[in-house]
């Protein structure tokens, strides 16, 4: 059996492309109105809970300020992103990747076990006996797959006025349209933070083997 299933590998690289495009075009959209509000409405700096800094052109899609072009990319990549996530969830429920590798056991939540895991991470010891992932990995992958990425889809639907007649309950659940927009940005940055930590840990854990295995599948250890 391969270390990474074909479905996981396909989704991983497709999702990378989607998340990078969505994030970078999202930074242009942030630049269009770099203020975040709570509740249903907000338009003025005095109502904002956060003034977001302007993101430089080299970080944004396109590499200059154009809200319409940024929206074109955002609107396009939303499709493979959302459908890909649905595919990954179906695949990992069917091939039991979720149950086998990501679901945590109660004993892993004991403070002493968590402490031990953190210490091993700090020692850069990534050797975990038996299980494919250690506790912090399971937690990170679980949060990204189960919370951050789905919340990007749900908050994205909520800020589309054309969807609201059907999904008004979702907008209400999220605390109103401006709250949903705030959450959209917060989960985007949470996803970006995961991305940075993920890349750093891959580099520390042997990037060539890690990247090769995510392409070829590798061999079960």
């Amino acid at each position: 059996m391969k270390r990474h299933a074909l479905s996981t590998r396909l989704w991983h690289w497709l999702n990378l492309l989607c998340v990078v495009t969505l994030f970078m075009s999202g930074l242009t959209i942030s630049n269009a109105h770099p203020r975040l509000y709570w509740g249903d409405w907000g338009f003025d700096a005095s109502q904002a809970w956060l003034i977001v800094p302007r993101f430089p052109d080299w970080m944004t899609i396109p590499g200059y300020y154009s809200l319409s072009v940024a929206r074109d990319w955002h609107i396009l990549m939303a499709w493979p992103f959302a459908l890909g996530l649905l595919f990954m969830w179906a695949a990992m429920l069917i091939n039991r990747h979720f149950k086998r590798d990501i679901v945590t056991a109660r004993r892993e939540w004991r403070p002493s076990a968590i402490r031990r895991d953190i210490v091993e991470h700090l020692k850069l010891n990534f050797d975990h006996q038996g299980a494919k992932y250690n506790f912090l990995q399971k937690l990170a992958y679980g949060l990204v797959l189960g919370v951050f990425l789905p919340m990007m889809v749900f908050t994205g639907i909520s800020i589309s006025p054309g969807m609201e007649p059907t999904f008004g309950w979702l907008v209400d659940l999220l605390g109103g349209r401006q709250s949903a927009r705030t959450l959209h940005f917060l989960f985007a940055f949470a996803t970006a933070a995961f991305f940075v930590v993920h890349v750093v840990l891959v580099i520390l854990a042997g990037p060539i083997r890690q990247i090769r295995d995510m392409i070829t599948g590798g061999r079960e250890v």
Partner: protein
Amino acid sequence: MKRRNFLVAAGAAFVAGCNRIAETDAGKAVLNAAESWHKSAHRLLVDREALAPEYPKSAISPFFRGNGSTDPQNGDYPRHVEEGFANWRLEVGGLVANPLSLSLENIRRLPQRTQITRHDCVEGWSAIGEWTGPQLSVLLDAARLSEDARFIVFRCADNLSGADYYESVDLIDAYHPQTIVAHTLNGEPLPIRNGAPLRMRIERQLGYKHAKYLTAVEAVASLDGIGDGQGGYWEDRAGYQWYAGI
């Protein structure tokens, strides 16, 4: 720092790649197709009559922001302001059997709809206001819309950076119950910054569809030949999406 340089270079290469794709005909076609997939999905998931949320009076924003033109100075508009819009006319024409020319008084005498709705700008901000006016469907029915009509074009008095503002919607949004020709905001005649004396409310789409300073409603079979053919001022000028429900 080297790592930062690498990141900048990788980002720049990715952006350059995206830009190159966006410039090809195939790239443009895919980007446009994605917009129509969203529209189709919305039309599939949302009933054509389904209403945008309406709010209680207590939810109204203390001030209603204006964007784009907020004080037009071109053509006859300043004169109309001086006259208190007493001579303003709204033409209903194009592919109709019975063209209309309505004064503000005519419009106020039609059956009215009042709705407290949220206005979402493409930039990201929102404001809530109470709008009153006749449903566009009432005007279109009175003018007896032709079967050939596919789109309704909204003509505006404001000229922004050298081009006349205009917008358009399909018949689903034109006949939507919340699509009204508003003359009143929060119980007062529309302020100039919000489109006095008349503006459209297209409640299931973003703010740039809600044409202000409305002078005419025109039924057409195609958007070709109107403006630059993209269906609206911002669509022509900056490539904004014609379907603004996303």
